[in-house]
């Protein structure tokens, strides 16, 4: 099984991947070697205890190393929020210039596909790519790095604020079926830069068959910089999705992350950040909506390395059918990280008897003067609230729908970007209450 990946790697190294710079080819080689050792994680691995990736390992999905598929602008429209945002589109993992739009970028901002960045931003890419998301203990990151070939590079120079969001759209069509995509993105914000980046993972071929998206995004957030990062996972119901976001934060920087996960048969989203400068902080929020036999797994990891940093986490989930949610929130407070202020909350609403959630807060605190709290709740719709609504004449079904929507609404309200907030609120209302 691993052999098939090694053979794919051989072919890729000789053909599609040959154009990369020397250092990138060396990085890929060490990554495939590491993957050969690690293999796919099993549920004996603590980080994968609740989620078996056997379906991915057994599916024999071939890396898509050459361009395939075709997506029309009109097919993309349902996944877009505005027609004047900066936008890079990748079809079946490969950059599509015709669907992309970067002509209105302000000075000091580059948004370009990886191949172009190798030529135009060689030093920046070499300095950061592969330096943040370690594959030492992460099979999927190792696999992504081994097949590193395409993705987005975003660079915002010091003091520049990018007013309009930058939207990275990873869309697949029927040609992706039985294939695997390994997009790799890099976001670098220099001192006091500010940007909003969305990553959307979607498909135009619902029901066509299985494929794997295994994406990695590395982010370097400089001193005093602010990155808002939104990840919207809307893959097809048969897809497998592993998405890792890994950030390093400088002094007084801010990361605001939101993960919305609703697609895929099996998905795992990793949101990691290291708070490496004093006074910086991260807000990691998310919403997962599961149904049928879906597995939706989130792992967050916040490393408090320096003193006086904050972290805030609110993850909510609504699980119906026989869906399975996992939330594992790790917070490590290093011995030097005094005055750490951390709060983590995970609330899950179970709509059916068969739905289940494994929630595991994991706080490891090695400093003595910190304030860290965590809380997790799992519940069903509140009968008192249902009665309250019914006592006002609202029928039982509508009351349930509204309360289900309302459960999700408060975490959606934390999204500052109005177009995305309103869009996700409407989608959630449609899903649970049949109206927008």
């Amino acid at each position, binding site marked *: 099984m691993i052999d098939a990946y090694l053979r794919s790697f051989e072919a890729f190294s000789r053909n599609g991947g040959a154009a990369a710079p020397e250092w990138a080819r060396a990085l890929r080689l060490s990554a495939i070697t590491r993957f050969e050792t690690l293999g796919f994680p099993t549920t004996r691995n603590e980080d994968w205890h609740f989620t078996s990736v056997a379906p991915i390992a057994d599916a024999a999905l071939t890396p898509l190393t050459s361009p395939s598929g075709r997506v029309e602008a009109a097919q993309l429209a349902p996944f877009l929020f505005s027609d004047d945002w900066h936008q890079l589109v990748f079809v079946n993992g490969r950059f599509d210039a015709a669907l992309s739009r970067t002509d209105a970028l302000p000075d000091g901002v580059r948004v370009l596909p990886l191949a172009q960045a190798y030529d135009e931003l060689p030093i920046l890419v070499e300095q950061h790519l592969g330096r943040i998301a370690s594959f030492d203990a992460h099979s999927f990151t190792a696999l992504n790095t081994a097949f590193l070939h395409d993705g987005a590079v975003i660079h915002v120079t010091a003091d520049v604020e990018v007013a309009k969001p930058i939207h990275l759209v990873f869309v697949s069509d029927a040609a992706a079926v039985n294939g695997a995509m390994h997009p790799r993105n890099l976001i670098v914000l220099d001192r006091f830069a500010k940007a909003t980046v969305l990553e959307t993972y979607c498909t135009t071929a619902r029901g066509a068959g299985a494929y794997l998206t295994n994406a990695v995004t590395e982010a370097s957030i400089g001193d005093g910089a602010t990155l808002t990062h939104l990840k919207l996972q809307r893959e097809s119901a048969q897809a497998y999705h592993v998405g890792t976001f890994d950030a390093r934060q400088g002094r007084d920087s801010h990361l605001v992350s939101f993960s919305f996960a609703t697609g895929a048969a099996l998905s795992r989203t990793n949101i990691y950040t290291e708070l490496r400068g004093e006074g910086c902080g991260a807000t990691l929020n998310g919403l997962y909506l599961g149904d049928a036999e879906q597995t939706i797994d989130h792992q967050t990891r916040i490393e408090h390395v320096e003193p006086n940093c904050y972290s805030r986490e609110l993850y909510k989930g609504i699980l119906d059918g026989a869906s399975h949610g996992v939330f594992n929130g790790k917070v490590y407070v290093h011995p030097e990280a005094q005055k750490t202020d951390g709060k983590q909350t995970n609330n899950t609403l179970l709509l059916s008897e068969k739905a289940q959630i494994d929630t595991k807060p994991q706080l490891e605190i090695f400093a003595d003067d910190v304030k860290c709290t965590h809380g997790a709740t799992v519940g069903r719709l509140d009968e008192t609230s249902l*009665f309250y609504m019914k*006592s*006002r*004449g609202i029928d039982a079904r*509508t009351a349930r729908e509204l309360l289900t929507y309302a459960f999700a609404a408060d975490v959606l*309200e934390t999204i500052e970007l109005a177009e995305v907030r309103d869009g996700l609120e409407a989608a959630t209302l449609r899903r649970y209450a049949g109206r927008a």
Partner: protein
Amino acid sequence: MLEIKDLRATVADKEILKGITLTVNAGEVHAVMGPNGSGKSTLAQILAGHPAYEVTGGSVTYQGENLLEMDAEVRAQRGVFLAFQYPIEIPGVSNAYFLRAAYNEIRKARGEEEVDPMSFADLMDEKMKLVEMDGAMLTRSVNMGFSGGEKKRNEILQMAVLEPKLAILDETDSGLDIDALRIVAGGVNALKRPDSATIVVTHYQRLLNYIVPDFVHVLVNGRIVRSGDKELALELEARGYDWLLDEAVA
């Protein structure tokens, strides 16, 4: 309008109501008073259809129909309204959306057209004045971050919008300062109609200075131990409930 006969009810196998008989006619205001734990809030919640209580005996007839067979939403659609002692917070649903949804459900049940948000806003302007509420409270989530007084005023606002035939106020006066009490009582009085009735459940006589009852009933240990006119409330205020507790035991 409402005829309660020998009503018995339990919650978690504990008998709370032990045979309540009470008749309420259109145009009347009835006060149900009693010490803590006497069953008066239970009575209010059973009339509204709370699922936590099991009716084990007796009957409740509302406008000639068996009230106990109706779902809570049907009762509301037929004109029964309960102002909650502890109004529920519903994060994520705006007060305006909630009120309009309820209003339209009740209009639908009456065979009337649903109203659009614009015409509903006009209606709200008028109703909000009644309880001296600020328009900003409509955009906030239902009861979220409302003070005790604001929550109770919001209950009366809902009552004003839904125009019930039978309004049941469950300890609406609890936790209110005198100004808020005056506003709430003023709202209730303004909503009284000859074809509607009100049941005021309260621990204290104070509210009855503002909402003057035609009848006062004292509930002790799941039974009505005494009924009278508004003078009975004043007597309770002066003497407390102990003398009735003693009578109930004896």
